[in-house]
């Protein structure tokens, strides 16, 4: 039994480290405290709301978020804007609907059930407006990058002058954390670029943290439920395992064999 547990845990550990080393390339990303990590990790509501503000005022001019709906902004575990706020947010966007009774398409203010309005009509239009590069959809962006939130957080703050000897093409920028260090996106953030509604000082660092938190939620809207349920499930399993262990001991005590 002891041997078994030892070997099994070594196996699981090995398995874990191999997959870890496989997924994360060795880059030292900037570190910050993410409130949503850990067994009880939750999103910081204020950060999510500010993050939405950064997204909508800065990122959304190029980056779509096509899998999110306006209603998500008011749902539990997210930024949790009030119902009135979410309706107001939705109504500030125009969507094309139709055809109406006359067979015409028409514009109307967005409703809660509408998906986030896309900045471009299609991929080609997005590429044409961005020097050939397609600004990736941000719905699951943090899960689609090896370093996850740390990578996005670092990238936003990783703009520097190119080292001497490195020539950059027109419209290409140097970024310490970008794969190959060359990025088409110009530095999107600068201090006091926006004015936070809650009075928080809008430094590049603060905005990076807020918008990354928002992107994490966008990619994993059920993260809080997952953490809460996971804790309960594991506690339940541990208690049941202990009970079953003693039942097993009792049953096996009838034969002269170890379990």
């Amino acid at each position, binding site marked *: *039994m002891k041997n*078994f547990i030892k070997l*099994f845990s070594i*196996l*699981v550990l*090995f*398995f*874990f480290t*191999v*997959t*870890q*080393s*496989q*997924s994360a390339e060795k880059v030292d990303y900037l570190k910050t405290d993410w409130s949503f990590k850990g*067994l009880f990790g939750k999103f910081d509501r204020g950060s999510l709301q500010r993050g939405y503000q950064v997204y909508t005022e800065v990122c959304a001019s190029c980056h779509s978020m096509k*899998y*999110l709906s306006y209603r*998500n902004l008011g749902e539990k575990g997210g930024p949790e804007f009030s119902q009135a706020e979410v309706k107001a947010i939705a109504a500030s966007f125009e969507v094309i609907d139709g055809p109406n009774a006359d067979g015409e398409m028409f514009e109307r203010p967005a409703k809660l059930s509408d998906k986030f309005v896309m900045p471009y009509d299609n991929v080609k239009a997005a590429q044409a407006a961005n020097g050939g590069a397609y600004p*990736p959809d941000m*719905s*699951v962006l943090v*899960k*689609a*990058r*090896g370093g*996850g939130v740390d990578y996005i957080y670092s990238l936003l703050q990783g703009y520097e002058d190119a080292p001497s000897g490195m020539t950059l093409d027109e419209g290409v920028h140097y970024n310490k954390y970008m*794969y190959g260090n060359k990025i088409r996106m110009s530095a999107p953030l600068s201090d006091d670029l926006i004015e936070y509604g809650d009075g928080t000082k809008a430094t590049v660092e603060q905005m990076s943290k807020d918008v990354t938190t928002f992107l994490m939620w966008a*990619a*994993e*809207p*059920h993260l809080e439920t*997952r*953490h809460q*349920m*996971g*804790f309960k*499930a*594991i506690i339940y*399993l*541990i208690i*049941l*395992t202990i009970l*079953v*262990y003693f*039942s*097993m001991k009792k*049953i*096996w005590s009838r*034969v*002269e*064999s170890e*379990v």
Partner: protein
Amino acid sequence: MSDHEYTPTSKVGKWFNDRLPLLTLANHLTDYPTPKNLNYWWTFGGILTFCLITQIVTGLTLAMHYIAHADMAFESVEHIMRDVNYGWLIRYIHANGASMFFLAVYIHIFRSLFYGSYKSPREIIWIIGIIIYLLMMAAAFMGYVLPWGQMSFWGATVITNLFSAIPLVGEGIVTWLWGGYSVDNPTLTRFFTLHYLIPFLILGLVVLHIWALHVPGNNNPVGIDIKKPSKDTVPFHPYIVIKDGFALLMFMIVFAFFVFYSPNILGHADNYIEANPMVTPAHIVPEWYLLPFYAILRSVPDKLLGVVAMLSAILILAVLPWLDTSKIRSAVFRPLYKQFYWILVADVLILGYMGAMPAEGLYLLIARVATAYYFLHFLVILPVLGFKEKTLPIPLSITEPVLGGSTNLAMAKNKESLDN
């Protein structure tokens, strides 16, 4: 195979059982005499059954919401993750369940290798097991294609392209597999169909696997034939049921940890990027459980020979009962085999690691040595070892672990009297 005839006590039960002996079957399963010295490595059979059922149940539920179309698959997965009630939970269980399934099957296979469970009279159980393992790999590979992310698409492209190595008809076969001239919608729909079919084939084979097991009965850590039922056995229920249940619960704790706290760690980030035939990912890597074979494939410079090597690496297991010439089953009594066994374990782990690394320089060299050793183990070491190895004395029965007069026997006797 319980020796006694079973008769239901109730009249209705008897009437039914005379027409369809389901109750006899149930009685056989609960009474099934099992060696009482099975250790926890034997609990993985039950764990694997749990894994298969979990995959089927979660898979059926996912299929109710998934759309097998190149333009909609990725979106429908996001729909499952966001809008379907507990869709995220079902999908994470299914995705991590595949990894857990393979973790368990590898332990199950290596348990068999250590205790010689593949040897006579259990060759058919073993061969059915290898077929199940092959089908599992096919199912897992096709399942990974379904979310239609970048790794799905490019993984499918790389693996299906392997068939082009077949001389003359290779290209034709690849086109036929794809249903077109590249991996596209027809590929996705047929992969979905097959991914749905294979688990039920596996289920059928599992029934045969267990049926074949119930003819000779379980092997055991001592590796000797035992009389059934006897002092050496316990009925399957409640003894083995509760023990398997206990082990399963421990396994579920590990499983739950992955599902709830790091659900994406075993997957590749690129699979959250929608498939794009115009952009090739920097590194195309398969899921972790296929990495050793991927390393073997890449360590051979010739494409055709690489494919042959990879397939042989799996198929060689099917003839293992005849490659291993030793009459002794358990490695406990084979001091040399025991060492070679652990070298093989290390070799496979090294191959797995190399499969995740780029195939160049030192990595490639190590992968080549490890590949060569893998085949050496099965083709040379095992056959020779059976003739050369000096094995330890084998006990007569489980209750008397070692033949005549040794200290072990004295200890066992001592313990028995204490227990009584």
